[in-house]
């Protein structure tokens, strides 16, 4: 469903390539975890797939195919049709990723306004249904709220609702739980798992936290300095890491013994 082949991205003001030739695939209904430290090129990879690269400020090559359609070299008008409709994105900081002056309901329904001919009432109905499916309580009330009236965890649910309201084929999650505290993080992971099995949306889940990825993803790709150093089944990678960098990442996870010591 999504295939990335030999993706290179280099920003004009940097010497080193942000992404130095990576290839991977995401099957239909699959969740792929993309792990790596900050600056390893995870987000740039996601932005390339989402068509959000600042094209004038970088050079890029390779192929990104979504159901056979090239995203990397697609023109603006095609990208606009795919944005939101086929590819949904959930960003790291829900508070800054939302328009502070637009009501929650309108932001969740924006994709519908852009990509469908539904009436206002039909849109509202779909929005409320999406808000219910991300387990937000009292969506009728939240519909008319502004972002500053909600907590970070609720906002991230809203962002997820906004991304899935139209049921895109691919959901890109760029560190969606990093800004949230641990209990909320676990709830969001559960929610994503549920949405994946109910709606069959493929997901690319980006995180610097291997432990979080392990809870959600069947397959994981490990990135370091713009390159994929290891790809495989999550358990395989976790218990039998092949690359020294992966081993370092695993060692960085705090465990019970270490905390006690």
């Amino acid at each position: 469903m999504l295939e990335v082949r030999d993706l290179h991205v280099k920003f004009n003001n940097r010497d080193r390539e942000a992404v130095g030739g990576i290839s991977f695939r995401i099957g239909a209904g699959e969740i792929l975890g993309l792990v790596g430290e900050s600056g390893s090129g995870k987000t740039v990879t996601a932005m390339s797939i989402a068509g959000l690269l600042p094209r004038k400020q970088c050079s890029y090559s390779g192929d990104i195919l979504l159901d056979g359609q090239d995203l990397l070299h697609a023109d603006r008008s095609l990208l606009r049709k795919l944005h939101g409709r086929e590819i949904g994105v959930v960003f790291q900081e829900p508070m800054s990723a939302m328009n502070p002056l637009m009501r929650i309901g309108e932001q969740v329904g924006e994709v519908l306004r852009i990509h469908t001919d539904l009436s206002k009432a039909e849109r509202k109905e779909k929005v409320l249904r999406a808000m219910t499916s991300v387990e937000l309580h009292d969506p009728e009330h939240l519909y008319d709220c502004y972002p500053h009236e909600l907590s970070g965890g609720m906002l991230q649910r809203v962002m997820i609702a906004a991304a899935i309201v139209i049921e895109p084929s691919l959901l890109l999650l760029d560190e969606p739980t990093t800004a949230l505290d641990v209990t909320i993080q676990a709830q969001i992971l559960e929610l994503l798992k549920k949405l994946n099995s109910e709606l069959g949306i493929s997901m690319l889940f980006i995180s610097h936290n291997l432990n979080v990825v392990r809870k959600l993803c069947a397959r994981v790709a490990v990135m370091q300095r713009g390159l994929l150093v290891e790809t495989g089944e999550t358990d395989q990678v976790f218990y039998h890491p092949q690359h020294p960098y992966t081993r370092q990442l695993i060692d960085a996870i705090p465990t019970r013994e270490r905390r006690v010591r």
Partner: protein
Amino acid sequence: MSTALQYTLKRLGLLLVTMLLVSFLTFLAFELVSGDPARTMLGTEATPQQLTALRHELGLDRPFLLRYLSWLAGFFSGNLGTSYSYRQPVWGLIAGKLELTLWLSLMSFVLIAVISIPLGIFSYRFTGGFANWPRTALNQLCMAVPPFFTGILFSWCFGIVLRVFTPGDFPGLREDFAASLRHLFFGAICLSIPRIAMTVRMLRSTVISEMNKAYVRTAISRGNDRRTVLTRHVLKNSMVSVVTFLGQTLAELVGAGIVVEQVLGIPGLGRFLVTSISHRDYPVVQTIVVILGFWVVLAGTAADLVNQAIDPRLRLSTAELGGAGS
């Protein structure tokens, strides 16, 4: 409901404090500078007896604080006093002039708001390339031109050469409304040119900085095109600082009008203020100063209310009334 009440009370309190402060400071300023209204009124030939008598009649021989308090008492009971130089009630002298100044200020303000907002957006949309430097140069030029200069230029060009209006001969709103407005319109243009340039520049830079915010990326990721990103998301977010700026502009306009009133011969408040100050006509000056203070607070309140309508987060902060602003 109670927040609205609290807000109103807060604003009224601010208004009261501002006006008290401003009137007291004016009183104090006149106490400190030299000059004697009695002498100005009677001329240099007056005998000391005459001067003392007049001072007593005007109440100028009383102590400073007592004079201020009695003025204050008069003000709140609706008696603005009598002009020293004209021997007429202050309000009757001021009302007509205030009307002209308000017309001038409001016309300039409408010009500024109506022209600069679309122009600011236009100026944002056509950014970069070789269009950049002429735009910046024009903007700088408009900002740098002082209203009195444009006033003189307009007097010559539209007044003397084209005879659209007669500089120095203001028809009067009651006598010839259309001609008066035409006359005021040129004053309003002089006043608004530099402020339009400032507002355009400010709106443009605000839009540019808003465009780099994270919510814009979200908007793009949902399939918004450049135009809808601007109209549906960025513009509203940019308006708060523009409205604040326009509020300050509205407050300044009345004061800034003084020079333009002089140059174009508009018998407004500003001109009257200047002559009253030189005649040491305290009651008139006091009243005008309090009106100006009132105007400044009013403009600030208006900007505040508009901003609250735009940004719900500002509504929240009025609910936390009295709390330290964060």
